[in-house]
């Protein structure tokens, strides 16, 4: 399909598709204001900027890769225990009630956040066209962060967790995370302040939002839930507000900043519309924070609180719709590149998942659907579609792009990248389909008072097995990724002088060299 589109658009006789025409117009206009760029000078500056981010970013990434593996193993344990409860039930620290929160916290605070921070740091320096500030302090922050996560995970496994979902780390851990994060925020803010680029690109908006939203969310929830706990049902509202918005106002902006940078970067093409970017960013900032209480439908909270949350969730269709259109029309006509570029393949997978998970999320917040699906495996599938399929895949894409620039070593093996992609993408697909379908059946059965509860438990077993299977596939992908990561860090394998592509590099070169007719030729 993409081939026909390419043919069509490269032939001057046939009119370009609608999106194509639009981009043609845009480039006319964009081209007139831009100065010519000296590629050599630009490369030298990129090198200097990248050099300043090298050590801190790689430190954050290394911690992330370690916790990705640790979190995968914990996830597998938790998943297997759901259908085979007697599996490894000998020790208290291996019980489901500890393994599952340990999985969640290592993934969020061990893998997702530090990797996201690494990407933020690199992007900030790149976008500011300035060297990263406080690199040594940042390395210390990375160490403190990872020690805190290790300490917290051990604490959870020892049974010292707070038992509040998403913030299970025992009370001695959060101050360390806050300390480490303030260094990150300081560095991002000062690097931005010293920027050598007048225009502030859309990725930078999201990054700036994220570095202020995350400390706000995290300190508020820790204060109100752990250090000065409130009484009663307000706890539930605060807990869900955090659990929902740590994805929405911390991970999502990082993911979107990455996508907004890397799609145009890999394609060498402008983002479709600055105006859509504006609408997307500000509507996200406006609406996301209201959501969260829709998890409490039917709960002991005032009806208006829940209703406001549902409306805000539906309003999220505005940022999601604009971002989806913006990304799609940036990609349009170039989908064939997904066959070759590992970065773009992961990034576009993440971007599409963002649209999917957000649209799904908006509609499942509606009362009628929520009452069936909320307390079932369906919600788990949804959460993984967000944190895994969108955020984690986007981060993989970013790592495939950033790492060779920092380590000065190409990825060792295209085959391992393929294992990584198909393991994670295939695993995620099985995971989502199995648990979504199972969750709907489970919810329908639970709402039927005539069905005995034990029958529902038994009915779920095949779906839980599908989850474990998916977990094995994803973990395989992660092991392949960890192997690639290690080889890249240690410069193992054959020295390559060309990018590691997933398919014939000559085809790729031809593809890159023949942009659609309506597209300007890349300047460099």
């Amino acid at each position, binding site marked *: 399909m993409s081939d026909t589109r390419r043919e069509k658009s490269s032939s001057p006789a046939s009119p370009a598709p609608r999106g194509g025409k*639009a*981009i043609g117009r*845009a480039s006319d*206009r*964009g081209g007139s204001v831009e100065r010519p*760029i000296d590629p*050599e*000078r*630009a*490369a*030298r*500056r*990129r*090198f*200097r900027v*990248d*050099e300043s981010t090298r050590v801190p970013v790689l430190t954050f990434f290394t911690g992330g890769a370690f916790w990705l593996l640790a979190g995968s193993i914990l996830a597998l344990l938790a998943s297997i225990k759901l259908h085979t409860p007697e599996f490894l039930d000998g020790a208290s620290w291996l019980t489901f009630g500890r393994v599952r929160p340990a999985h969640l916290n290592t993934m969020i605070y061990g893998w997702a956040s530090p990797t996201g921070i690494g990407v933020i740091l690199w992007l900030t320096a790149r976008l500011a*066209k300035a*060297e990263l500030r406080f690199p*040594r302090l940042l390395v210390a922050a990375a160490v403190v962060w990872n020690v805190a996560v290790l300490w917290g995970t051990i604490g959870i496994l020892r049974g010292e967790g707070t038992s509040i979902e998403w913030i299970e780390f025992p009370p001695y851990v959060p101050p360390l995370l806050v300390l480490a994060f303030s260094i990150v925020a300081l560095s991002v803010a000062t690097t931005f302040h010293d920027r*050598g*680029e007048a*225009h502030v*690109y*859309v*990725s930078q908006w999201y990054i700036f939002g994220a570095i202020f939203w995350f400390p706000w969310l995290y300190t508020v929830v820790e204060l109100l839930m752990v250090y000065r706990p409130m009484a009663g049902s307000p706890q539930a509202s605060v807990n869900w507000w955090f659990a929902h918005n740590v994805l929405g106002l911390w991970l999502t902006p990082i993911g979107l900043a990455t996508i907004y*940078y890397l799609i145009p*970067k890999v394609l*060498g093409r*402008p*983002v479709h*519309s*600055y*105006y*859509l970017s504006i*609408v997307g960013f500000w509507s996200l900032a406006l609406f996301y924070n209201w959501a969260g209480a829709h998890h409490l439908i039917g709960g002991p*909270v*005032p*009806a*208006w609180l829940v*209703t*406001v949350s*549902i*409306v805000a969730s*539906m*309003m999220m269709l505005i940022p999601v*719709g*604009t971002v989806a*259109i913006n990304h799609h*029309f*940036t990609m349009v006509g170039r989908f064939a590149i997904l066959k070759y570029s590992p970065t773009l393949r992961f990034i576009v997978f993440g971007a599409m998942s963002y649209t999917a998970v957000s649209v799904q999320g908006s509609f499942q917040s509606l*009362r009628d659907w929520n009452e069936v699906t909320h307390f079932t495996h369906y919600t788990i599938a949804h959460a993984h579609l967000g944190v895994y399929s969108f955020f984690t895949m986007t981060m993989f894409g970013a790592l495939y792009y950033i790492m060779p*620039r920092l380590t*000065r070593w*190409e990825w060792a093996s295209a085959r391992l990248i393929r294992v990584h992609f198909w393991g994670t993408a295939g695993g995620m697909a099985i995971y989502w389909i199995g648990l979504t379908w199972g969750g709907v059946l489970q919810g329908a059965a639970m709402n039927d008072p005539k069905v005995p509860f034990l029958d529902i438990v038994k009915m779920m077993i095949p779906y839980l097995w599908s989850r474990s299977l998916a977990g094995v596939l994803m973990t395989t992908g992660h092991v392949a990724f960890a192997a690639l990561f290690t080889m890249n860090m240690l410069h193992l394998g054959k020295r390559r*002088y060309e*990018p590691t592509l997933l398919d014939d590099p000559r085809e790729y070169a031809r593809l890159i060299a023949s942009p659609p007719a309506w597209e300007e030729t*890349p*300047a*460099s």
Partner: protein
Amino acid sequence: MSEPRPARTSEHDDQTEAHERYDVQGLHAPILRERRDPRDGYEPIPPWLAAVFGALIFWGGFYLQKYSGDFRSDIYDEYKPSMLYGSTKPAAPVDPVALGKKLFTGQGCVSCHQATGKGTPGQYPPLAGSEWVQGSPARIARILLNGLQGNIKVEGESFNGNMPAFGAKLKDDQIAAVLTYIRQEWGNKADAIDAATIAAAREAEKLRSNPWTAEELTAITKEDAKPAAEAPKGDDKTKASGDAKAKAKGDSKEGSGGDSKAKASGDAKAKTAESAAPKSAEAKKAGGEPEKK
């Protein structure tokens, strides 16, 4: 890496002196082969998209109106649209005796006056059978509001101690509930006291900060006049929760409930009970849910 450097590096790109060791050919390939940095296109927002978003916002307003329960903190059931409110049953009202019992224990009354209400002989006066407790509401209200100090004679026995003040700690309806409880427990048989009585006493003595003495209290012979606007519609409707209480309730209806009912039917038919409620948060609290008669 962390040394200070010119703030606007892009203007000084050609300052290669410091970076001469990085010959362009020596730069690693990924950086050289990179394509240009992302930039913005300027396509307009499609009109149909604006229309879709407009419709979405319109829907949001409709949904908010329909399921917000009038943005009230005491409406939990979103399926109860506000226009139907007049015809639905209110939540069960708070039973002042139960609330009073809880406060009696929770606020520490019990540690001196004891769960039996008999007090501690020679130290803390009894409440069971006490003429003070079952006597004038104005006096007993003042004791709770400002405390009591010095000699007092209860059931023929003299006590000399300190009763702490609860005026700052408890709200009117809470004090009323404690008083109602001790006036009807342990064989005591006196009227319930409503929040308006406490509010009136509080208003009358708002300048006072020191505890009362028995003499001062004895000098008070008049009950406080309840402010008309504050008259609650609620607290006498404890759903019959015990024979003795039911009887007391009947009495109190004569006392306080009667006039408030007359007033309620005077200015508006109870159909709009909830519109009357915001007038006085105190009154609403005192009665739990505003009731329709």
